[in-house]
């Protein structure tokens, strides 16, 4: 028990919480960006605009079939070479997460709309609604309800996947835990326990949010 008390002394806890803060920061920014971009890409793909939808679909399919780790490496090492810009680990991670998660979300959103669309769009149009009216009043409300659970579980994956950025030395939760147990191996079990608990709290909070939203929408 003494090891645990030592491992959880305030300096270490504070260091872990500093890491957690970076994890949350990266997650929140990436969630916002990727939701917006994912929604636009998902809609573009769904709308079947000649060429544009196909190109978007092609890019989305490539990105979502690659490992996130590869995209992180590529963003941090390769992209600056190609674009001639440089970013620090924080922004490299945010960009990589946004690129990957946007593609994943675009697919969720496209198939979500598609699942509702069948027949309903035509019915709405033949009742005199315009395309956007039908979309806004008939299709999207149903689609959003269907999409919330997969979207939120994608966000949960995003939070978990920020841990991969340890490999480019982003000072997030996982990395800070590694620093602590790297300097004192006795702290390994307490640190992994802390990691499990902290990630669980953040992710479980998100899934509770999903259930809450789900209930809210069912009532409405």
């Amino acid at each position: 028990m003494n090891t645990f008390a030592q491992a959880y002394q305030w300096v270490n806890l504070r260091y872990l919480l500093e890491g957690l803060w970076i994890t949350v920061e990266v997650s929140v920014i990436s969630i916002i960006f990727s939701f917006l971009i994912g929604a636009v890409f998902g809609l573009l793909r769904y709308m079947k605009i000649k060429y544009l939808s196909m190109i978007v679909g092609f890019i989305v399919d490539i990105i979502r079939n690659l490992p996130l780790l590869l995209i992180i490496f590529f963003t941090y090492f390769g992209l600056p070479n190609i674009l001639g810009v440089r970013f620090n680990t924080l922004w490299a991670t945010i960009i990589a997460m946004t690129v990957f998660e946007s593609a994943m979300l675009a697919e969720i959103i496209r198939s979500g709309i598609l699942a509702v669309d069948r027949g309903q769009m035509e019915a709405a149009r033949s009742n005199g609604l315009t395309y956007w009216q039908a979309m806004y009043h008939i299709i999207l409300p149903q689609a959003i309800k269907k999409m919330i659970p997969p979207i939120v579980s994608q966000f949960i994956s995003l939070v978990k996947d920020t841990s991969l950025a340890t490999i480019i030395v982003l000072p997030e939760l996982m990395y800070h835990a590694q620093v602590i147990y790297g300097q004192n191996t006795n702290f390994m079990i307490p640190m992994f326990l802390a990691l499990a608990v902290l990630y669980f709290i953040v992710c479980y909070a998100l899934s509770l949010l999903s259930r809450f939203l789900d209930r809210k929408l069912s009532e409405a």
Partner: protein
Amino acid sequence: MRLKKKNWLLIPMLLVLGLTVLAGCGQKSVASEDVLARDKANKTVVWGVKSDTRLFGLMDIKTNQIQGFDIDIAKELSHRIYGKDVKIDLVPVTSNTRLPLLKNGNVDALIATMTITPERQKQVDFSDVYFDAGQAILVKKGSPIKSVKDLKAGTKVIGVQGSNSVDNVKKAAPDTRVLQLADYAQAFTALKSGQGDALTTDNGILYGMSSDDPNYVVVGGTFTNEPYGIAVNKGQKPFLKAINKNLKAMRQDGTYHKIEQKWFGKIQGFHQGR
């Protein structure tokens, strides 16, 4: 689905085409401005350093500051080149990430336990040698492995991705299996977990690990010479000159010796090992 039959063929073709074009673009390097002049104007210098390597660059959890021999040298050089009021930015790198980060311009220079090798000299320029290390192996006390010669078939040796010690040990002990981990903290943890029979890298780093946990000892002396240099991008001659000039001055006025003593003065066996 939008994809008609013939489009199925189009996808792999587009893929190869796109990748080839992008890969071609990847060859051009970031146009490098004069780092010395820019840093002088901005009063900021960015060093790539290790943050997981005891004695050279290790994160202090209490203060959230990186400390070590490399760090002290970097700070002293910064003050001498740019003046006392310069802002010193320390970016943690690993052996695997350091070169791309320098070439991408994320850091101005690397002082990160980096051996000067001919292959690396094709990529970047090195300063004069600022530290003489040599590769050795670290094992658990009482291990049957006494030197690099004992790394026979069936043994596993742990190294770090991007370090030249991995290539060296493959030459010195061709039959051993090399496991490459992301950084030194991970490598040492893996050794303690029994993932390998020995850990190999430069003796200075190994003595740092051994001073951290005396159950692990450096054995067999060094089997290579590893002269450490400070790396800067090609075409940064003024910056490199300033580094070399001040390194020399630091050696002459005793500052270098003081820093060396601070970190390695108390390390048992280190000087015999060299």
